[in-house]
Structures are given as C-alpha cells and as structure tokens.
C-alpha cells in the first residue's frame, strides 16, 4: 500500500508536468487544428531560460519562472507569426511539415548554441520529505511545489478562458473561426494570445522539470513533447479539462507500468495508449463526436 501511494505521487508529479505541456497542445489544436510539434522544444527553451536566470542572474524561484514564461511566450508568438500564420489557409500538411521544421530547428540550434552536454539545475529548494498518516504518505517539498504551481496555473487558465473577453474570443474562434471573424473577433490576435498562454505554460513545466529532476539538455523536449501530445489526445484534443486529466493519467500509468510491470516497455506503452485511443475513441475521453461536414 505504501509503495502504491508513493508510485501514485510519483505519477501525479510527472503527470502534472505532462498536463502543463498538454494544455499548450490542446489549446493550439483547439484554435488552429494544428499539432504544434515545436511545443516540446518551447518547453526546453523555458527550462534553459530558468536555468540561466537562476544560475547566472541568481534570481529566485518566482522571478526565474516569470522570466522563463516571458521568453517562451515571445518565442511561441514569434514562431506562430513567422512560420504558421502565412500558412493558415494552406493545406494542413504543409503547416504540419513547417511545425516539424521549427522543432528540428530549435533542437539543433540548441545543440549548436548550448552544446549537447547535460546541464545541472541549481537547487532552488533544498530537499525535504514530509510524512503523513504514520508515514503511509511521504511527499517531498519539490513535489508539493509542482502540485501547487500546476494547480495555480490550471485555475488561472480556466479563469482566463471563462471570465475574460479574450477568453470568450478564444472559445469563439475555436468553435468557428469564420463566424467569429464576422462577429468582429480579431482572429490573428486571438491566435497569438493562445500561443502566448500555451508557451508560457510549457515554460512553467520546463522550470518545474529542471527543479524536480535537476538536469536539462537541448533534446529534453522530444519525449515529454510526444507524451504530452498523447495525453492531450487521451483527454480529447481541443478540450482543456481533458488535457489536464489526460496528463495526470499518463503520468500515473507510466509510474505504475515502471513500478509494477516492466520498465522496459514504458515508452512502448505510451504509444500503445495513443493508438488504442485513436482507434476506439479518436475524440478522447472527454470528446464529443463531430460529424464531418462537406
């Protein structure tokens, strides 16, 4: 029982990170119907910004986090502006290829500029373990930070989407971009805003990963990026609560597979989940069936 709860907590911490990345995927997909392959690399840039901010500028946790969010946000919006916007009316495949190109560019640019070496994240929080219920639940302060920050971010996102004007615009564009345009919604600005929020969330995930696992490298975004995408599909791509649940679920499944099954097949299992979901219920756990209109 004790190990099970420990595995659950491990899974939930990893899952929160997947969820934060998955939110960016899902929002972008919801509004542009595009899988932003470069999203995992924006997360990497966020992690590196946090690293430089805390190591060389000696900033604390919150300022580093904010700086990382800002840099990733600018990057995300720039990518959308330069690489995706001109292609919005072209075929979906061409924009997908561009996304792959941007992703490769960020990874290899990262290798050239930052060197392929693994960097060590500074210890912002000294590790402490807390026990509850006679040691049945033990949780580290880093895990608590991950949970708290993730919850703040997710609640904040919900508030933005449901309580603000721009959030309303986002929902409108996501439902029907043409109709939204006719109703006077500035589609370009809304899309930019979506990329900004998604990228900032990815940066948060990057910084949290840096703190939790204390090492980062330029290719760190590939696998979590794919996993988070699977999480988004699992929850129903385009649906925000779906991404959160999907992310947490993915983290827990991975932890349980490593803990009780064989760690050999962990990555295989994630892809198997993706394929099963796509074949049985492509709209995901939270999705509704939409009929294709001609």
């Amino acid at each position, binding site marked *: 029982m004790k190990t099970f709860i420990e595995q659950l907590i491990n899974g939930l911490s990893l899952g929160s990170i997947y969820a934060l990345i998955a939110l960016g995927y899902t929002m972008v997909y919801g509004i542009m119907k595009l899988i932003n392959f470069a999203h995992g690399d924006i997360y990497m840039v966020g992690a590196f910004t946090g690293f430089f901010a805390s190591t060389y500028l000696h900033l604390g946790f919150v300022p580093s986090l904010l700086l990382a969010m800002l840099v990733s946000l600018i990057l995300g919006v720039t990518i959308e502006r330069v690489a995706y916007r001109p292609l919005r009316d072209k075929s979906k495949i061409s924009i997908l*290829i561009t996304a792959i190109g941007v992703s490769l560019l960020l990874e*290899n640019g990262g290798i050239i500029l930052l060197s392929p070496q693994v960097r060590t994240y500074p210890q912002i929080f000294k590790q402490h373990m807390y026990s509850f219920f006679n040691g049945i639940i033990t949780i580290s302060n880093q895990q608590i930070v991950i949970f708290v920050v993730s919850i703040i971010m997710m609640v904040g996102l919900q508030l933005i989407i449901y309580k603000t004007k721009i959030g309303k615009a986002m929902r409108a564009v996501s439902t029907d971009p043409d109709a939204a345009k006719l109703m006077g919604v500035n589609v370009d600005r809304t899309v930019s805003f979506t990329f900004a929020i998604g990228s900032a969330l990815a940066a948060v995930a990057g910084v949290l990963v840096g703190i939790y696992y204390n090492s980062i490298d330029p290719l760190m975004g590939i696998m979590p990026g794919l996993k988070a995408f699977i999480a988004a599909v699992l929850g129903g791509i385009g649906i925000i609560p779906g991404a959160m649940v999907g992310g947490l679920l993915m983290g827990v499944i991975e932890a349980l597979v490593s803990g009780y099954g064989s760690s050999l097949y962990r990555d295989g299992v994630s892809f198997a989940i993706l394929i099963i979901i796509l074949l049985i219920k*492509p709209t995901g756990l939270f999705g509704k069936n939409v009929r294709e209109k001609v």
Partner: protein
Amino acid sequence: MKQILKNRLLIFIGLFAIYGIIQILLSTNILNDYYEINIVLMGINIILAVSLNLINGFTGQFSLGHAGFMSIGAYTSAIITYKLGLSFPLALLVGGISAGIAGILIGIPSLRLKGDYLAITTLGFGEIIRVIFLNTEYVGGASGLSGIPKYTNWTWVFWMAVITVVLIRNFINSSYGRCCVAIREDETAAESMGINTTFYKTLAFTIGAFFAGIGGALYAHNFYIIQPETFNFMKSFDILTMVVLGGLGSITGSILSAIFLTFVYAVLQDYAALRMVIYSLLLIIVMLFRPEGLMGTREFSLKKLFKKGDESSEFTVN
C-alpha cells in the same frame, strides 16, 4: 505509338548508359569505395523517397512511420541471409513482403484517421516497431545485428531503384493510381464517386511499405550492422525532407532531391549539427515560399527539355 516506343527505347539506352558509365568508373577505381558508398546511399534514398511519396504525395496520407517499414525490411532480410544463410534476392523479396504485410496491418486500422492524427499514429507505430526490435534478443536487442554480409552494390541498387520508380510510376498512371490521386484531392468527393477509399489508401500504404522494406534490405546489406536506433523517427523525418523538398506528388522531384540531399549530407560531413539546422530551415522555407515543393506535382521530362512548348501531361515521367 511509334513515338512512345522510341521514347521508351531512348530511356532504356539512357539508363544503360548511366549504369555502364558509373560501373566502369567504379571498377577502374576512378570513383573509389567512398564514392561507391555514397552513390549506393543515393540509390537507397531514391527508393525510400519515391515510395514515401506514393503514400504522402500521391495519396495524401501523411505517414511518419517510413523508418519503421524500412527497419522491418532490414531486419527480415538480414535474418534470411545472415541467420539462415539463404540468398540475397530472396532476402530482398521477403524483406519487401514482410514490410508490405506490416503496411497492411498498420494501414487498415490507422487509415481511418486523417491528417495530423494519422501522422502521429504512424510515428507511434514506427516507435513501437523499434521498441519491439530493441527488446528482441534474437535480433541482438540494443546492439543489433552485426556481421551482415555486404551484397548491396551499384548494380543491385541501380536496378532496384529503376524497378521501384518504374513500378510506382506505372501504378500512379493506372486507374488505381488515379483513384489514389482522387483521394488526395478530395476524399469525400472521391468516396461519393464510388471509390473505395479504404482499399486504395491501404493499397498505397502497402506498396509504399513494400519498397521501403526493399530499401531497408539494401541498407542492411550495405552497412554491415543494423541497430534499432538507426531507424528512429529522425530517419523518417530525413526521408520526409527529401519528399517535401522534391515536391509532394512528383517522382522525379523525389529522385532529384534524394540525390541532392545525399550529396549535401556528404559535403557537410564535418558540420553535423549545422546540417540539421540547414535541413530544418530548408523545410520551413520551402513550405513558406513553395509549399508544393521544388517540383510541385510536375515531372521533369526530357521531352519538355528538348521540345520546348510541347504540351505534356502532368503524369509523364521522362
């Protein structure tokens, strides 16, 4: 009719000339082993790019799992020659067929999906194939199979590439191929015209996978050792870059860009990271300024080259 025959003959003589000249240059060692390796690699890349183009370019099904099919061909063929000691032509055939079967198995379920979903599913399948090889001790697990005899040479690669190109070209010009193109243009419309879209999509997938398997078999018998890591999704992206650069829907485009990119690869040998940056910039720039690729859906044709202003159909391959 006479004109067509004459053209065919011309092409045939041309092919023999290319084959003969390179063969002479190789056997007299004017082009040394290092050039042979890269020329063979060009041939393999042509097979891979053209076969992926059938799936991605002509049928419009965005697959990112080509390296997976390639690895199946590579591993099965290596088992045939290296483990069982059978002949190379048989290995090529079985390698191709097993990749083709994998194409059917993966194709039928995943082709219900579209666009980005299909892309990510095929990518997932490619990765699963890799994880399976990684965990199979019979084929060496992580260390892979080494000691594969070197059978691939210029003769094999050249004629396999010619066969691939001719067969795929004929397929595309057949009624089957037209159905595939119709699916690319508008799947719903194609379906309402009575085209069994699932059948044709699976067919394209299977043929593409078959030739990817042959490419993989040639690859395995050229490079002595194969490891699961060789066939990760970066390999699929490499092949994709060739197809996109050449033009989705242009066979000659794929051939030219396979040759060009292999050449660039060899020239930029000492700047590996830079090479990937150039690749990715190429992808982005081509998409932004010429989303249809350098050749678009057009084909390079000698007829056009010689008789300027002559009308030529979209599907003529030189």
